[in-house]
């Protein structure tokens, strides 16, 4: 027996050894996603000292790429909403996080897909200032430090000057030679950190989505389906599908099929799953005519272990310690809940969304809009929707509430100058009187000289962090009194709703019947004794 075994082992080893040269001569088994290996290009085999130098090299072959980028929101930070005719985009809108980019460009534009947008005079026709690498880096080494207007640092540099903090230089040659398709990490480099930090803004996008488990996102599951952002947000000529300004709230177009003429948004659930995805329970497809997929399939957001900001009160900013220094306060979990330069925050994980009828129509409160201070919060973005317009579904939302500067004379919101190593930036000087005028001036908006704080809210439809189907919401989450959809009008939901008149009359009849038979029975018992 032993001898046979030994011979077998020898045979296998010998066979494997003899087989090796044959394998080596065959085609590479590596699954390449591209036909070009950029490390073999002579053009990239040199030292680059700035981002635009790399871009110019890219454009030597990819001649139309910059022009394509120039037409996108990623580049322009400007968007004309065809429905509302409002001019939107990061260049124009305000939010209730860091408020506005006006006068804060050098800090904010570290997330611009370009180089050098440091003030309102940036040249949007420049081709060399398009940043190819921020989306196409595959090394994970590419960095656009805040404060440098989207530029990169190729040599170790002290920044801000005199601070003693060193920003490490990056090797652009190595990065350029390894460019590839976009990934969760490249998109996430900005979109995970919106609002000034990991998980701050969206709630359904944070660094836990970089390599998520199946339970966090069934599609992006790093060891499963492994979707990238672009799997759904398919680009066409560098324009990324999907929009926060004109979202597709209700997609009735069915699954996208090659050959079928279709201009629909490819990033919706329906674009792949169709309008009747529930195979076993037809009743759930009926639910889907009223309820967005996301409502049941994203049971909570901020599920990846990183808390998202839920409130931000700018009105308490500016407190300092006894020595006049800026302070931070943390909660018992070590999360920052107060910063002198920003005010008070609350954060939360595993947040149950709020819900509302939503038809994709959003109107923004812009700097040019007059607003009246009242008990009602000012809605930074007003989401339209109703149960009867035929265009709405019930959507999950992150509603972000805050308090931010307001001009009580001109009755407008305010765009303060926050970031910047100068003597007016609020984050350095903690003085609103200094910070507001340059910000408003940069926005081209009048400022009365008076400011207060006004309560605002902003709604973020939740669409990422899709849970596996066994983790989708159970019926009872909504089909109960005081359930998740307690405030939603226009739908009859068994167990939540009942006609109170019918209930009263019904129980009345039942009770009267019971009293009747009991009375009759007592009479019978009494009469028997006599």
């Amino acid at each position, binding site marked *: 027996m032993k001898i046979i075994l030994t011979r077998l082992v020898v045979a296998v080893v010998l066979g494997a050894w003899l087989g090796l040269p044959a394998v080596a001569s065959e085609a590479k088994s590596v699954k390449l996603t591209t036909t070009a290996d950029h490390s073999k290009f002579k053009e990239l085999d040199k030292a680059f000292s700035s981002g635009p130098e790399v871009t110019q090299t890219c454009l030597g072959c990819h001649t139309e790429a910059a022009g394509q980028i120039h037409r996108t929101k990623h580049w322009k930070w400007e968007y004309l909403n065809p429905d509302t005719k409002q001019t939107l985009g990061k260049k124009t809108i305000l939010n209730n996080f860091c408020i506005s980019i006006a006068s804060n460009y050098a800090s904010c534009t570290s997330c611009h897909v370009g180089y050098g947008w440091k003030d309102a005079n940036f040249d949007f026709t420049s081709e060399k200032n398009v940043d190819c690498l921020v989306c196409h880096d595959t090394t994970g080494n590419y960095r656009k430090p805040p404060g440098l207007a989207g530029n990169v640092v190729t040599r170790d540099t002290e920044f801000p000057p005199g601070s003693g903090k060193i920003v490490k230089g990056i090797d652009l040659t190595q990065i350029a030679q390894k460019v590839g398709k976009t990934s969760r990490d490249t998109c996430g480099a900005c979109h995970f950190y919106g609002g000034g930090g990991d998980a701050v803004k969206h709630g359904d996008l944070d660094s836990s989505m970089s390599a998520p488990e199946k339970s966090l996102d069934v599609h992006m599951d790093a060891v499963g389906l492994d979707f990238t952002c672009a799997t759904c947000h398919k680009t066409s000529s560098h324009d990324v599908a999907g929009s926060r300004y004109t979202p597709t709230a209700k997609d009735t177009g069915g699954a996208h099929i090659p050959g079928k003429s279709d201009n629909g948004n490819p990033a919706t659930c329906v674009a792949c799953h169709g309008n009747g995805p529930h195979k076993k329970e037809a009743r759930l497809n009926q639910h889907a005519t009223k309820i967005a997929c996301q409502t049941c399939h994203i049971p909570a957001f901020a599920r990846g272990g990183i808390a998202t900001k839920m409130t931000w009160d700018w009105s308490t900013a500016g407190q300092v310690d006894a020595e006049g220094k800026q302070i931070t306060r943390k909660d018992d979990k070590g999360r920052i809940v107060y910063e002198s330069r920003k005010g008070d925050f609350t954060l939360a994980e595993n947040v149950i969304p709020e819900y509302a009828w939503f038809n994709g129509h959003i109107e923004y409160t812009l700097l040019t809009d007059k607003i009246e201070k009242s008990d009602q919060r000012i809605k930074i973005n007003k989401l339209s929707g109703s149960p009867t317009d035929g265009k709405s579904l019930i959507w999950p939302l992150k509603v972000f509430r805050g308090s931010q500067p307001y001009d009580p004379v001109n009755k407008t919101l305010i765009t303060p100058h926050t970031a910047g190593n100068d003597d007016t930036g609020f984050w350095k000087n903690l003085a609103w009187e200094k910070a507001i005028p340059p910000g408003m001036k940069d926005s081209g908006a009048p400022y009365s000289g008076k400011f207060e704080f006004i309560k605002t809210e902003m709604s973020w439809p939740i669409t990422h962090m899709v849970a596996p189907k066994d983790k989708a919401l159970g019926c009872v989450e909504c089909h109960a009194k005081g359930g998740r959809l307690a405030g939603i009008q226009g739908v009859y939901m068994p*167990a939540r709703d009942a006609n109170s008149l019918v209930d009263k009359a019904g129980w009345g009849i039942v009770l009267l019947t019971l009293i009747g038979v009991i009375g009759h029975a007592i009479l019978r018992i009494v009469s028997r004794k006599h």
Partner: protein
Amino acid sequence: MTQRVYIFKGFERFWHWSQAGLIIFLMLTGFEIHGTHTLFGFEKAVYLHTNAAWTLVGLWIFAIFWHFTTGEWRHYIPTREKILTMAKYYSSGIFKHEPHPFKPSPVNKHNPLQRLTYLAILTLLSPLIWITGWLYLFYADWPAWGLGKLQLEWIATGHTIGAFLMLAFLISHLYLATTGHKITSQLKAMITGWEEVE
């Protein structure tokens, strides 16, 4: 002098009791779907209610077949005869220990008030429950059936009204079962088929 009469046949008794069990179970699960209690959990209650409803549909197919092939449906033909006598008996005679004015027999099983009540249930209450229940069950198919304008609220409310009436019937039915020759005579008849009459 007490006699024994064979009133309820085997299938009839099986039908009665299985229907009774199913209806009580449907009420229990139905009132959970309605939001009255949370015994099983909503999802389970829907599942159980749906399956019990289908079982009852099956039972009814057999029961309808049986009623028509045996001619037993004639027991629900209403009569005006003795209605007042019956009403008088329940409202006064029963307390004076007067004899029951109705003697059941295999050709006339139900007293005139029973005939009327059961007929009303068969022609009014049951259709209300069945039609609303059926629509409720096939909620997803309304648009395909051309019923897109129908509101779930109307259907659910109608179904609930039916449930309340059925519950009121159940209470009175259980009680009236004690008003036979002896307290247990009618119960025994429904179990064994044989009823004691005077």
